[in-house]
């Protein structure tokens, strides 16, 4: 699609009106990056571990839904009317989605309890390697099952496009997917904001982010809260994974793609900053689209690398980070 636009564009005057489209599409994909970055930030805040295996867990969320969906689909004969397909398809999809999120919650909980907690006081390098190893193991299992196939994620609702506004005859469109995904992410951001800034649980997490020993000294059960947060982080990531699966395809290697965007968003926003992760995700989404069209399609792939390199060189603490150093 982007190539098409590019071929049409011959000069800046012609390019300008597509800018809104690029920004809107950038925000839409950026919302998914933001969700992934947010889920990584939550883990980071609890344990100061950058989960380098997160992308694979995110993809595992999508695969889990893919596996569970046929098991929970009701045996209703599909008729052609939109309403009946909605009734017969959306509820099982939601059931499968919720089950997948539960499965990934359990995964996160167990991964922390079994693999991370015992070495949490050790060097950060071991933690990074452990996270990578877990990610590779997950990817290995997925690959073994679905190796060569690139799967299409079943869709819960039809593909549709809406014109959101029109500038000089060139319309700006959003797909139904984008609208729904943005809504879901915004709702998750609001919930996260409330949980992390307005609740007792949020205060506990904030204390643990400062110092885990200090948190123990005020009676906080650090291991238990870490387990929970890994559970929450992984299931939030899985929600992102399902949406990424619907946007792209189901492919074990999408894990790396996801991790890089999440990592770049975190780096740009500042490690540990919740709103930094969100803003970072949005900026990267927009940059990818705009640079991809206005400069070169190569930027769609390399923007996240560039952002990581430039931020670490120029402003290591990112836009909103408090700590200058990244402890891996």
């Amino acid at each position, binding site marked *: 699609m982007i190539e098409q636009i590019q071929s049409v564009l011959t000069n800046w005057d012609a390019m300008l009106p597509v800018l809104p489209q690029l920004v809107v599409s950038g925000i839409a994909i950026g919302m998914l990056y933001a969700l992934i970055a947010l889920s990584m930030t939550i883990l980071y805040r609890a344990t100061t571990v950058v989960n380098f295996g997160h992308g694979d867990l995110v993809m595992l969320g999508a695969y889990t839904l893919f596996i569970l969906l046929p098991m929970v689909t009701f045996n209703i004969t599909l008729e052609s009317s939109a309403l009946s397909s909605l009734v017969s398809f959306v509820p099982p999809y939601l059931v499968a989605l919720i089950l997948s999120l539960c499965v990934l919650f359990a995964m996160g909980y167990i991964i922390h309890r079994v693999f991370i907690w015992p070495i949490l006081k050790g060097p950060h390098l071991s933690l990074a390697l452990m996270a990578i190893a877990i990610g590779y193991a997950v990817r290995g299992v997925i690959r073994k099952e679905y190796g060569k196939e690139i799967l299409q994620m079943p869709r819960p609702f039809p593909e549709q496009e809406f014109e959101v506004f029109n500038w000089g005859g060139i319309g700006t469109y959003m797909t139904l997917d984008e609208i729904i995904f943005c809504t879901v992410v915004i709702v998750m951001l609001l919930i996260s904001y409330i949980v992390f800034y307005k609740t007792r649980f949020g205060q506990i997490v904030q*204390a643990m982010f400062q110092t885990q*020993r200090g948190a123990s*000294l005020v009676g906080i059960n650090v291991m238990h809260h870490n387990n929970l947060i890994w559970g929450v982080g992984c299931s939030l990531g899985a929600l992102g994974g399902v949406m990424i699966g619907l946007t792209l395809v189901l492919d074990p290697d999408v894990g790396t793609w996801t991790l890089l965007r999440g990592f770049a968003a975190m780096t740009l926003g500042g490690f540990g900053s919740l709103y930094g992760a969100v803003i970072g995700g949005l900026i990267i989404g927009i940059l990818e689209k705009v640079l991809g069209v206005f400069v070169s399609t190569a930027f769609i792939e390399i923007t996240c690398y560039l952002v990581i390199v430039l931020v670490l060189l120029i402003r290591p603490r990112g836009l909103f980070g408090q700590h200058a150093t990244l402890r891996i």
Partner: protein
Amino acid sequence: MDSNSRLHIADLVAGYGHNVVLRGVSLQVNQGEIVALLGANGSGKSTVLNTISGFLKPTQGTVHLDQQSITGIPPHKTFRAGVVQVSQARDLFSDLTVEENLKLGSIIKGDEALGLRQVFDYFPRLSDRYDQQVSTMSGGEQQMVAVGRALMSQPRMLLLDEPSGGLSPLFVKEIGEITARMKADGVTMLLVEQNLRLALEISDRYLILRDGKVIDGGSTDNLEGSHDDIVRTIYL
């Protein structure tokens, strides 16, 4: 273990991996008492406190709080039982404000309003610095926050690890006065202190830790002339 014992430790053995630091520590702190734990650098004073708090699991021996065993249970449970430590490194939530630090002190257990009243009574300065980020405070002020945070849960047993460490003489004096007031209010304390004069002044009894054992101890009354003897027992 008599009935007015608050903290009772018997034959505690603990260490780090193969490095056994405590080789049978026994001690008792009675209700309302302040006991000073003295010892050279590296003698294991902090290790004693961390084993009581549950950061370290003893391989042998017992710890009892008010006749209830708290041996080997994790820190969040010893806290719930009423043992609260002010650690040597303070372990404050340094990016948070004084208010947030203090309130976190009673987030799991304790009466927040009562705690704040008591803390401001002991440390009026903290009420002026309520909104200040802890990392921007002086060492002495941070120590006040650390002690204040510990008091927020109305502990039954306070473990203080070198409250005067690295502080100016003025602060040392102030810490001394405040511990005296805390004692008058009935707070029971096990105090690790390098400042011998301060330790002996504020505590009822002293204990000397050496080679992983409590080797000496006694009342701090009428010790004026024997400071040198104590120093010799600690270091030589």
